[in-house]
């Protein structure tokens, strides 16, 4: 099976080269037989890449250390589940996973593209085959997972302990699913640009893929935050690390696109902008890979670096050159078919929402690349850490939060003063109440106060929208409140699913703002000693050490400490933190010691305990005890966003509703509220 897998990779390379050639030739000459051949090549690509992946999995699970990849990232005593996930622990495996997902997506996209304009199909297929050709070529010539060693080592080097974590088992595949999904809209954009079929039709297919990308990026980013929080042990979940930033960039442009596409669908505007965002999302996904793989920028997440970064740099340049050329030569075809009637309109607010989202993306990209730019200009290496990103992005993030509440309150085309007053009164009062209450309770941190005030405003907007919708349904159909609520969402998943995503955004912003009140303590405790402190809410805590213990478990030596935590004298729980020293099957220590954080979750705050080390006498634990307010809400906010995203993506809603929008029914005043909401084309 391993040999079949190895050979399959080369056959996949030939298939990708063939598919690329005949697809573009078929498009240029109009020969459908060539296009059909390219389509079959796409399916074959997936089959052969799948065989190649299965071959590597077999090699990993059978511990065939004759392969460099297997010997580098596994060991005989590695738990089986992590032998399986070691597939994406290294460069070659993660690129093979990338190729596998890409060809899987390509197969679905090509099969579905039969419904598309026949002129675009060859170029969609050709572009996807070309992207696959690049990835498989990197695998064959740059970093081959089937590279063999000259000798057969008795054991492998093992898997980095930080990757032996459930979060790390599922976080990278999710991120890859998100990154790679940007390839399909990119292929459609290239096809639409080449054929000059730049109406809104191609966008309907693209929107689903952009949503899919957004969904997986959201899940992947939040899982990555959780992994960093529980595994790295530095006490936070987001450090503005270059690799974190790289995953955030396409998420931002995807989010911008998912808003601006509505403007094109409804009003025929922002056509150039939408093409630009689709292309930018793909290029930023490739840039993220370039940053992760090349080692150009220092990162704690770069577990798989090598010279293939140069391949990605070259690919990025070619992709930029082609897309810039295509967009530049088709500007006339990208003219808007309608004009903005008023800045005070839904489309106007989306323009500003896009401006802020892309502004944040630019500021993050700029901050990530600034050390390189600075050294190139001044010859002085600098560090651009979290303080820089916080300075720049907190104001932009707050502006974005405000627009999250403002956008849904403004009507399409033009909003009257009376309409604005009616729409804004409730949400503004909700925001003011939230901010005023917190101020009265003693909160004085200005950014946090603004965040909670705006959060109240956005939640007020969402509650008002749901209340109006359910109220209208109850009046029109006589439904019960729960039934009308569920049906309201079910009948307009895109709109109300989007509002649920906004709820998740508010929850996450509220959790971020909570970090302003984080409190850290650095203590050393002997067995039986107690440390007393006060949390950000004013509660008195004591932590008593139950002593340091050492034991051997599976493939690691463990040094552990357990603290008895009491809040205001009452037992809150036991917090257990570990340092782990992994060893290989010859009992030789492998890798640096890793941390297992001790956590006490509550809705108000996490008690986060890290065993930093053991003092000289062997009985004293050196500890860092941190109160992290509202962290659990980051994970809940991410979950809410994912649920909202799933509701928006649910395919049935898409099939029911045509892209033409809604059928508006003239009805007597009073019955008309929400009538349009229920009607479907």
């Amino acid at each position: 099976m391993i040999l079949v897998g190895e050979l399959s990779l080369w056959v996949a390379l030939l298939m990708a080269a063939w598919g690329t050639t005949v697809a573009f030739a078929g498009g240029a000459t109009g020969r459908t037989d060539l296009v059909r051949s390219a389509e079959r090549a796409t399916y074959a690509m997936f089959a052969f890449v799948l065989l190649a992946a299965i071959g590597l999995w077999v090699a990993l699970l059978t511990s065939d250390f004759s392969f460099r990849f297997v010997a580098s990232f596994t060991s005989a005593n590695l738990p089986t589940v992590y032998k399986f996930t070691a597939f994406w622990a290294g460069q070659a495996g993660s690129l093979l996973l990338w190729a596998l997902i890409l060809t899987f997506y390509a197969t679905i996209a090509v099969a579905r593209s039969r419904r598309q304009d026949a002129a675009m199909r060859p170029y969609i297929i050709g572009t996807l085959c070309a992207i696959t050709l690049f990835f498989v070529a990197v695998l064959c010539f740059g970093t081959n997972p089937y590279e063999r060693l000259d000798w057969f080592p008795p054991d492998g080097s093992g898997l980095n302990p930080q990757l032996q974590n459930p979060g790390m088992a599922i976080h990278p595949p999710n991120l890859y699913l998100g990154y790679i999904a940007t390839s399909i809209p990119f292929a459609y954009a290239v096809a639409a640009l080449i054929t000059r079929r730049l109406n809104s039709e191609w966008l309907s297919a693209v929107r689903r893929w952009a949503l899919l990308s957004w969904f997986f990026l959201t899940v992947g980013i939040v899982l990555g935050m959780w992994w960093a929080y529980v595994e790295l042990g530095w006490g936070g979940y987001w450090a503005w690390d270059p690799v974190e930033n790289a995953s955030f960039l396409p998420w931002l442009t995807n989010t911008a696109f998912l808003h601006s596409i509505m403007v094109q669908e409804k009003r025929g505007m922002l056509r150039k902008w939408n093409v630009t965002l689709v292309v930018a999302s793909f290029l930023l996904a490739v840039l993220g890979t370039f940053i992760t793989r090349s080692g150009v920028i220092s990162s704690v997440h770069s577990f798989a670096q090598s010279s293939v970064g140069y391949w990605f740099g070259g690919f990025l340049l070619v992709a930029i050159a082609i897309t810039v050329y295509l967009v530049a030569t088709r500007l006339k075809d990208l003219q808007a078919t309608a004009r903005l009637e008023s800045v005070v309109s839904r489309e106007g607010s989306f323009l500003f929402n896009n401006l802020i989202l892309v502004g944040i993306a630019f500021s993050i990209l700029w901050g990530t690349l600034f050390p390189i730019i600075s050294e190139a200009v001044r010859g002085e290496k600098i560090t651009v850490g979290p303080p820089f990103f916080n300075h720049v992005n907190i104001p932009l993030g707050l502006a974005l939060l405000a627009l999250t509440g403002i956008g849904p309150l403004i009507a399409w085309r033009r909003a009257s003063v009376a309409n604005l007053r009616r729409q804004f009164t409730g949400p503004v009062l909700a925001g003011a109440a939230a901010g005023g209450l917190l101020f009265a309770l003693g909160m004085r941190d200005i950014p946090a106060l603004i965040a909670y005030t705006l959060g109240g405003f956005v939640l007020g907007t969402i509650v008002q929208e749901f209340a109006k919708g359910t109220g209208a349904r109850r009046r029109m159909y006589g439904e019960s409140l729960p039934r009308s609520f569920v049906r309201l969402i079910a009948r307009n998943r895109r709109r109300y699913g989007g509002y649920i995503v906004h709820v998740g955004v508010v929850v996450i912003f509220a959790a971020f703002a909570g970090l302003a009140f984080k409190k850290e303590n650095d203590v050393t405790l002997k067995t039986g000693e107690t440390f007393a402190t006060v949390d950000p809410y004013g509660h008195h805590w004591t932590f008593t050490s139950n002593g340091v213990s050492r034991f051997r478990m599976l493939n690691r030596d463990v040094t552990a400490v357990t603290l008895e935590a009491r809040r205001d004298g009452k037992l809150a729980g036991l917090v257990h933190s570990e340092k782990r020293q992994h060893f290989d099957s010859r009992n030789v220590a492998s890798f640096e010691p890793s941390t297992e954080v001790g956590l006490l979750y509550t809705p108000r705050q996490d008690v986060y305990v890290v065993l930093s080390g053991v003092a000289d006498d062997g009985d004293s634990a050196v500890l860092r005890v941190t109160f992290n307010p509202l962290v659990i809400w980051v994970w809940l906010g991410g979950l809410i966003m994912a649920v909202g995203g799933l509701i928006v993506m649910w395919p049935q809603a898409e099939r029911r509703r045509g892209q033409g929008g809604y059928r508006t029914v003239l009805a007597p005043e009073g019955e008309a509220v929400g009538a349009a909401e229920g009607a479907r084309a």
Partner: protein
Amino acid sequence: MNPEERVPTAANLSLTRRRFFAVLGVGAASAALAHAGFAQQSVVDGFNGPMDMDRYRPVRLPARGTPPVLSAEQRDALEHRIHCQCGCTLDIYTCRTTDFSCTVSPRMHRDVVTLAGQGYDAQAILDAFTGVYGERVLMEPRKEGFNWAGYIMPFAALAAGAAAVAATLRRWGKTAAAVQAATPVQVDASPDELAKLDALVRRDDA
């Protein structure tokens, strides 16, 4: 082959001289940026590798007979502004309190404690560290000289974007007004019906 089966051919890929140079310019700029990135690689490679415990350099200042001016909390806050040089991306407070294996951050911490104990303030300690390690020891660039580009550029780009959006809106507004004035629309509906339709359109804002 049946002629009806033929796929329409690609659009004409005509290229004017201006477009050619525009594409060439973008390509050259991208290549220059990438070259700068690649040129960096040789410098940064070592920085990315496993922790380098030899990166520690003693930071010393002449002893002074003045009492400490920094409290323990202020000293911890200062350590959050100093980048550990072991090869990680953390500040020395976070690194030394969470990373069991790092020997650089505890030594840098001892330097901070010594200097604080000698009565030096936060700025003097930061200057001393910068003098030994260079500006990379700071968690964020100083707001001076070329570094201002780092701080200003995101907001400048945002302002430029806002200006571009405003200009586009103004142009669209004029065009819309001109089109509306030039082509009056005849609608077979009473004013009441139009008012109801208008109200529905405004509410149909999904």
